[in-house]
């Protein structure tokens, strides 16, 4: 297959290793990977803030770049939700509506793509550490991703997964983290406490945007926890 | 235009635009199928066994959790014995009650002055009664509830003002579940309902202070159900 990989802005700038890992994994599985140079953004910040016209301007470019793709894999559940779930809503009643629907239909988040589309769970990876897993809200509730990452982790050599006792939002929420920093921080603290209770060494997620917020808190407060994207684990042998 | 007409006009105008069906996405105005029936409700609500024994067992189990004092009596004699036991344990000097086959027999056996709530009565006197004895319309196994109405249970206040409410019920009154109770109400009273219908589930309770359970917040602190 030719896989068109969509790399959102924060992966590009802050966590390129996540994108690199995804390219390596997909190529190892025998697929050709293409990565559009631009755009870098799915348009979610403007959409979430209520500026749907401005969001559409960004999203239209994305749709144009992806319209001929065989399949689109997105390196984030949050951006994935924007493209798969919200693009059809965003373009309702506009000339781009059919294209938005068509592109949405071929979008997958990375772990979802491996497990649900390719039927692959064992990548021969090895990561002998105790980890706990954070379900990003858009991944969990908009894209319905829950079992795919867990199936992949189950096949990682030496990995011990301990679940947190509660599933709750980490407090990032995109622009929310900047608009309501006090609440966002409190929510992040609650999340970190839940993770620390599991005694895990690593906090894993498919959403580096959530991890960016949590790692920021961990570093500032000197907590004994490390964050890592699932792709970074899966590429390790 | 009256306020009523104003409101109805706004409602009709609003409803001239269709809303999406119960689901999520705009652009989908799927109308739902016809309304769920009591049989549909029964299928999704907690399960209740079909036999009387199953239902009694479930009612008894719920009563324990609710802290209701429930006793299945073999016969009228046992019912009267149980009534007298409670009279003696609590030292009742008078009771409040209403006319009915079970309550008449019960009050007679107790040999105490009775304040009757069938005709006009003094609510201050009712407040002083230690116990209100009533009949009911049904017992509901699924929830451990007692179904009373202002017609079957001596009015509105009798079953809630005295600190102890005693319910005298017949075993045929034990229904399986809430859907059955509503079906029964419609059949029994349809067209001429009592002004009050109440599902009583356990004694009065509150968790308003630190989520700690306290019984007898305003209504009865004790609920006794004697079923014969």
């Amino acid at each position, binding site marked *: 297959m030719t896989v068109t990989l969509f790399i959102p802005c924060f992966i590009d700038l802050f966590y390129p290793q996540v994108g690199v890992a995804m390219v390596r994994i997909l190529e190892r599985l025998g697929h050709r990977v293409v990565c559009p140079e631009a755009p870098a*953004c799915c348009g979610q910040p403007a959409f979430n803030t209520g500026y749907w016209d401005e969001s559409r301007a960004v999203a239209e470019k994305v749709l144009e770049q992806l319209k001929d793709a065989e399949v689109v894999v997105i390196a984030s559940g949050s951006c994935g939700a924007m493209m798969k779930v919200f693009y059809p809503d965003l373009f309702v009643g506009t000339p781009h509506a059919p294209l938005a629907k068509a592109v949405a239909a071929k979008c997958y988040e990375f772990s979802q793509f491996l497990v649900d589309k390719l039927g692959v769970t064992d990548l021969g990876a090895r990561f002998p550490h105790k980890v706990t897993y954070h379900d990003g809200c858009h991944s969990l509730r908009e894209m319905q991703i829950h079992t795919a990452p867990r199936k992949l982790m189950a096949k990682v050599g030496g990995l011990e997964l301990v679940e947190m006792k509660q599933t709750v939002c980490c407090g990032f929420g995109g622009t929310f983290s900047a608009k309501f*920093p006090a609440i966002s921080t409190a929510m992040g603290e609650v999340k970190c406490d839940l993770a620390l209770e599991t005694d895990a060494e690593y906090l894993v997620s498919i959403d580096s945007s959530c991890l960016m917020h949590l790692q920021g808190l961990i570093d500032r407060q000197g907590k004994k926890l490390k964050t890592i994207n699932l792709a970074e684990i899966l590429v390790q042998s | 235009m009256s306020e009523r007409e104003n409101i109805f006009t706004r409602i009709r105008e609003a409803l001239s635009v269709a809303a999406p069906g*119960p689901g999520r996405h705009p652009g989908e105005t799927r109308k739902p199928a016809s309304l769920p029936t009591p049989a549909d409700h029964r299928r999704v609500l907690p399960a209740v066994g079909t036999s009387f024994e199953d239902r009694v067992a479930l009612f008894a189990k719920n009563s324990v959790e609710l802290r209701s004092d429930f006793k299945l009596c073999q016969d009228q004699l046992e019912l009267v014995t149980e009534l007298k036991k409670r009279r003696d344990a609590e030292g009742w000097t008078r009771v409040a009650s209403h006319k009915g086959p079970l309550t008449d027999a019960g009050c007679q056996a107790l040999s105490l002055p009775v304040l009757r709530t069938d005709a006009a009565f003094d609510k201050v006197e009712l407040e002083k009664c230690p116990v209100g004895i009533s009949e009911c319309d049904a017992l509901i196994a699924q*929830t451990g509830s007692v179904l009373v109405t202002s017609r079957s249970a001596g009015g509105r206040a009798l079953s809630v003002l005295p600190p102890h409410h005693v319910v005298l019920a017949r075993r045929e009154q034990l229904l399986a579940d809430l859907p059955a109770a509503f079906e029964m109400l419609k059949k029994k009273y349809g067209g001429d309902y009592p002004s009050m219908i109440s599902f009583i589930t356990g004694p*009065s309770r509150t968790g308003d202070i*630190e989520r700690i359970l306290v019984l007898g917040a305003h*209504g009865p602190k004790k609920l006794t159900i004697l079923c014969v």
Partner: protein
Amino acid sequence: MSTAAAQFRQDARRLTADLRHRQLIQTALGKYEVKRDENKALFQDYEGARQFAAETKWEAINHLDQYLDQFVRGLEARGTKVHWATTAQQARDLIVGIVRGKNARRIVKSKAMTAEEIHLNEALEKAGFEVVESDLGEFIVQLRNEPPYHIVFPAMHLSRGEIKDVFQKKLHDAPSDEPEELTMVARRVLRQKYLQAEVGITGANFAVADTGMISVTENEGNARLTAALPKTMITLLGIEKIVPRLEDLGLFLPMLATVGAGQLISGYNTMYGGPRQPGEADGPDEFHVVLLDHNRTAILADAEQRDALHCIRCGACLNVCPIYRNVGGHTYGTTYPGPIGGVITPHLRGLQEWKHLSYSSSLCGACTEACPVKIDLAHHLLQNRRNATRQKPSGWQKFAFKLFAPVANGRVMWMLVTKCGRIGQKLHPLLRGKPLDPAYCWTKTRDLPPIAPQSFKEWWRTRA
């Protein structure tokens, strides 16, 4: 920023830093969660029940004129006096008028969020009447001159010590701080109020159209007493409380109790169809029902958000909302907190003034998942944001987002951003964490990740 928004931020900042408060709420809600899940598990098909509940309310709300008419005719046929109020002021005036008309002085009240919404108590007290809240939690916050903290648990935020203190101060009767003893004090005081009050005011959880009855859910028995003893009974409710048939309560009563309070069914669920009827020995001589619009028809007209009127006021969305759990009920500064409050308050009280309640959400979607009638809560918050910016866009934000398109979409622009970002990061330590820091909203409490020495796109370009 509106005054309400500024107050919200101030209170949120204070309460999110209050770890004692955080612990109190987490503990209270933790207990509720255990019981909720136990009772949910008893359902044979809880998700099926949600779908039935959603379809039933959809039918009721989308044929509201028909069912409301049926409801009122049923009530009036048995002697109930029905009144209509478009505005909060009209509702207040109607109720004050009814009370005056009875030459009454003392009123006992059971819990009604709608009464909070129209600030009824204030109006009654100003008119010279004594109003006593009978629900224990409401009674306590009334003594403290506070609004309720949670729509189901008004005094969730208070410790037994604080309750003892206010009982001592206002009632001069507080033997200890044991919940049982404090409750008995309230019971003693309120019993006299029920007996003496000439008027009882209640809310309603549901309005049953086919039999013309209101339905009231409670655990304490205080609403039962409010509806039994005073000579005049007044019920205030929103027009959206309609359910089509009596048997619909067989589904709604257990669902309300399960997610609202973690019980299979509440202690007292009572249907009232009129004043005292011929043959009945007690009950009110007069029964008045006041139907309130107060912008519910505006929500009805917004077809996209019409399902917000399906709300049965259970509180399930509050209980799961991570924002609510950290800022608490009072921070919202309005009658309906949490996600449902974020959705409807802009409609009820003004979009520009209250849009911040729609913005102060991470859109996690836990509310949508928890709602027993499947209201699309999280998406409605997004829609409110869109409506707010359409109505009154913020100049600089609109400009910034307009700028973002060519920057994020342009190959060259993005390269420029990457390179400038790296330079900016080198200079950032000088300003980091200080109020002049452009990233202050982040760096006040969190570190920023460094921009990678080689971005993904730069690496990708080297492969070509």
